[in-house]
């Protein structure tokens, strides 16, 4: 028997102990997986719409517990309370209207050249899913993973981040309280941090090690060897290095406001934060001025303060990464226009890095002569999650749509967060498999069914 461990979950701003929870052991994880496997059939006893109605009811329960959940998200995740609303709404809206995803799963008839409709494509759930969610979203991603699997009919075991598992545990206990049917086919794993592997998070690196590394990553993260054979299917979303392009034909003050939201929401700790800003040369200085003004308006500090935009960082490791990146940029004669300072309590809480704008060799990185140049700079990245464009030239907009190398393109849009149509996914090193994706779509496989009975029944009788 493995030794039992307890995890201490602390407030990311004050360091206050929020709770001590027992971690799973390889034995308990194995038992949970067995239980899920045994009970998966319960999900299939309901149809898609029954399951979606149940998730919709659960969304209502979540809404009534919003104040409590927000407090937990702020405390254990360090998200400013201002953005905790988003963290909850994205999943509550997703669950409330989850039957919207049926369009991706609906059985489709195909018409042959002869006009017959004998073929149908039916979508079948893959089976038990193991999901690992990141630290920056204490609730939305782990709950989305659990809910999406429930919706399509897969049993699922989800590992929320070890740094902030309390909100997800609370959500799961609410599912228990409402006696969510077939909950026996869903469970959570609370795994100690040392089980997770720290390594390169690019799709390329993970793929290169697939069969060996990926399986081990999941095994170690979950705590047990989950399968003796490689997975039937796997997919993941990794990091982004999103470009935002600002052309010379837009309202700079308005764009700078949206830019700041896109870059610094959740203290910038988002896979799809706008990290690289590419500006047309004719408005470069003027736009920088607008942007610096907006960044310097951001308030950082106590995340429970409704005016605060930037909460504490999730860990000392992130603070160190910030320092290393900025110091590295300085080696290349980077200009730090604003920010670039750390606030270090010397503890593992209350850590901040001031909102920072860095300029590195503008002609090579951020200053574009024309659309061709803007595209070249934006596409010069190993990542391809999102890209954002601000321009009023309709011809250029079409070129951007075609040429930008990212799976999700936003043109003249405010940063969209909670709309149900928002897709995940990426290309290049941002995700595998490549492309924009809706999670439920990835959890099923297509089955081709040719039923010739209507035309052949007399022949074979």
């Amino acid at each position, binding site marked *: 028997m493995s030794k039992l461990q307890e995890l201490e979950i602390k407030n990311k701003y004050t360091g206050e102990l929020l709770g001590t929870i027992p971690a799973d052991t390889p034995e308990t994880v194995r038992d949970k997986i067995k239980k899920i496997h045994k009970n998966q059939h319960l999900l299939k006893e309901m149809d898609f719409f029954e399951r979606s109605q149940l998730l*919709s009811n659960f969304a*209502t329960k979540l*809404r*009534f517990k*919003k*104040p409590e959940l927000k407090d937990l998200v702020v405390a254990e995740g360090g998200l400013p309370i201002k953005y905790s609303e*988003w963290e909850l*709404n994205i999943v509550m*809206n997703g669950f409330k*209207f989850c*039957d*919207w995803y*049926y*369009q991706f799963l609906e059985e489709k008839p195909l018409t042959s050249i002869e006009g017959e409709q004998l073929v149908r494509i039916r979508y079948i759930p893959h089976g038990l899913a193991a999901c690992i969610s990141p630290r920056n979203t204490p609730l939305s991603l782990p709950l989305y993973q659990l809910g999406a699997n429930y919706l399509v009919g897969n049993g699922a075991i989800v590992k929320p981040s070890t740094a902030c598992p309390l909100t997800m545990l609370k959500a799961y206990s609410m599912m228990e309280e409402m006696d969510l049917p077939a909950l026996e086919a869903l469970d959570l794993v609370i795994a100690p941090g040392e089980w997770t592997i720290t390594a390169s998070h690019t799709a390329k690196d993970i793929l290169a090690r697939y069969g060996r590394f990926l399986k081990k990553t999941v095994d170690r993260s979950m705590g047990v060897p989950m399968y003796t054979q490689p997975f039937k299917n796997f997919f993941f979303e990794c990091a982004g290095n999103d470009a935002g392009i600002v052309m010379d034909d837009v309202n700079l003050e308005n764009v700078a406001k949206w830019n700041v939201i896109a870059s610094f929401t959740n203290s910038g700790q988002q896979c799809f934060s706008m990290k690289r800003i590419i500006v047309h040369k004719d408005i470069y200085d003027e736009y920088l001025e607008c942007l610096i003004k907006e960044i310097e308006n951001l308030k950082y500090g106590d995340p429970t303060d409704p005016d605060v935009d930037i909460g504490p960082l999730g860990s000392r490791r992130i603070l160190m990464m910030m320092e290393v990146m900025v110091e590295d940029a300085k080696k290349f004669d980077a200009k730090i226009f604003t920010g670039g300072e750390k606030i270090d309590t010397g503890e593992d809480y209350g850590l901040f890095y001031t909102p920072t704008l860095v300029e590195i060799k503008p002609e090579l990185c951020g200053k574009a002569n024309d659309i061709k140049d803007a595209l070249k700079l934006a596409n010069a990245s190993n990542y391809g999650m999102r890209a954002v464009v601000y321009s009023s030239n309709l011809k250029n907009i079409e070129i951007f749509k075609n040429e930008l190398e990212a799976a999700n393109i936003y043109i003249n849009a*405010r*940063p*969209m*967060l*909670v*709309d149900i149509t928002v897709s995940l996914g990426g290309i290049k090193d941002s995700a595998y498999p490549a492309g924009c994706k809706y999670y439920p779509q990835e959890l099923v496989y297509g089955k081709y069914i040719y039923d010739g009975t209507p035309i052949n029944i007399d022949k074979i009788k």
Partner: protein
Amino acid sequence: MTSKIVNQKAYKTEIAKKYTTFLAKYPEIFSDLISGSDFDFALYNSLESYDKRSPVDIFHVCRNGNGIKIKPGSGVDSDLELALSIDAIEKLIQTETKVEYAELLGSFYNDPDEKNGWIDFILHKRTQTLINMGYGKFAQTAGILKDDD
């Protein structure tokens, strides 16, 4: 837009009568819905009664070519049910403008409170169908669905 309350005497509760009278003042609230849309307003005196789907009163609003008709009972093939607590309705009918009404309705959805008031809705048709009928826009105008700002 026009509004008509049909057979108001048929309501079981005074609060339903008051609420229908109030809604009839603002038919333009329903202007985003396509003609033929029809949805229920179900009034609940507690969360428990909502869990049991046991409203104290119910009426439905039908959108027609020129405006709305408010009728007692639930619609034969209603598109959705808007569930409201009595506490919420008592506050909603005190509002003096359409904007004030929408803000309060939205707050009852986004920040529901068992004591102060809440609303919810149960979809009877697929989300995509309801979006096509104008309910998404209606929910936004009514303050229920917030935009990202």
